[in-house]
């Protein structure tokens, strides 16, 4: 099942309530379509919530594997709403290993749903992740549409592209980036990158 913003809000509310009644509290850092939707940037439906990190004692730690009680609650809520058992997943947690954009922590937007505190990546950080994903997956991917919806400036796109090259240093990736930036209206991308 795909969720619009209202449905995602309701499902996260149910997850937070379930965690709270089980005496559980988790703090997650989310990126991707769900975050963009809850921030009101995009309206396309989503099927999952991508988690890049868990917050433990104030520090970001790898989200994979998700703690078992959290996974169980995610599965239980998913069952009730017709979602997959992994509708909250730690797929992007690899991003944490190579480093999040500088200042990420200060830009997050936080919402609390019962026993669940969610930090959504800020707008600039979403631009960074979308640039990385779009260069990786091609100009026809959903990430390009998300990127356009974020309406980044040329400077923001260039800064995001520079950050993404710390995750993939290959020449092939650089060429994809240049092509992506060009298609998004950044002039002289090859020289300015």
């Amino acid at each position, binding site marked *: *099942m795909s969720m619009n913003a209202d449905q995602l809000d309701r499902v996260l*509310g*149910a997850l937070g*309530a*379930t965690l709270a*009644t089980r005496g559980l509290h988790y703090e997650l850092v989310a990126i991707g379509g769900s975050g963009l939707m809850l921030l009101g940037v995009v309206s396309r439906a989503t099927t999952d919530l991508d988690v890049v990190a868990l917050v433990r004692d104030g520090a970001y730690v790898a989200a994979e594997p998700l703690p078992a009680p959290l996974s169980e609650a995610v599965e*239980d*809520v998913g*069952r*009730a*709403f*017709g979602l997959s058992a992994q509708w909250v997943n730690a797929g992007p947690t690899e991003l944490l290993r190579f480093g999040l954009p500088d200042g990420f922590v200060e830009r997050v937007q936080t919402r609390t749903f019962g026993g669940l505190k969610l930090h959504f990546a800020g707008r600039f950080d979403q631009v960074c992740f979308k640039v990385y994903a779009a260069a990786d997956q091609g100009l026809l991917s959903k990430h390009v549409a998300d990127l356009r919806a974020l309406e980044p400036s040329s400077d923001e796109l260039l800064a995001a592209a520079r950050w993404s090259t710390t995750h993939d240093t290959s020449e092939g990736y650089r060429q994809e980036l240049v092509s992506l930036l060009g298609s998004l209206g950044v002039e002289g991308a090859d020289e300015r990158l």
Partner: protein
Amino acid sequence: MNGSSLRLESQAVELAWSLWAGLGIPAWVGHHESQAIDPEHLILFTAFLRDDDPRLRDEATTWCVHFGRYLSTVRFRNLLMTEAPTVRSAFGEFSATINAHSRLALPAATTPRAYRPTAGPSLSEFDQHSQVALRLRAAFGVNARAEILRILLAEAAGHGRSVADMATEAGFTKRNIADACVALEMGGVLLETRVRNQFRYRLRDSEAFKRFLGSVPDAFPPWRSVFHVVERLLETVRSAESLPAQVQQIEALKVVDELTGDLQIARVYPPQLKRPAFDAWSAFTDWAIHLVSDWAEGRSPRYLIA
């Protein structure tokens, strides 16, 4: 507690009373005289009910003190391995109390509760249909053989049962069951047949065996699954009744999902809960109350799979 959990709890207690009546405890309910009762599973269930009915708990303890020699320690040990922590923990006290007032050494004993032994039920023979498991043990010993014979008596279709299949239900290891099957075959009681690539055992002459026993029940309900279902339903309704509606629905769907296997064994339809589930809790509690009520009163559940 609210209405749903009180009703469910009262039905669970009534089920236990009725089954104990079938094993000889004087009781005002008795709906299971024609159904085979599984003593160890009933004791685990009674222990799970803890203080829901102290008189039931004490009467059952007294029965065990007096007739405990017909209970299987090995079977208890094996069954406990797959029981929920709540059942294992409740059984610890029950077991310790029985051990403290008898020569038995039931497993998993913890600390006995305060209990004053009373005169046990007066039973001169396990001659009721519901007591067939005890009758078999009295005749063949408290061992895997008695369990195999009980399982094969229940095998109305006569297709036989494999060793692995019987081991799960009997609460003995496959090795125990295999050895006992070979001995019973040597003794002329069982017959081994091959169905496709599987060896199965059945009674060599089930009618003669039933005549020998003299008292064979109409039904052999799968008590292990029935009790698992009742226990989980009761736990869920108790713990979720005061939760927000959305969480109740999530818990209802979760427990129904967890009980899929036991419901299939008991041949019972799960409740029809819509997903996304916005009115699942009331549908779930209605279903649970009807189901446990049917079991408590010895009826075929209205949700029985035809």
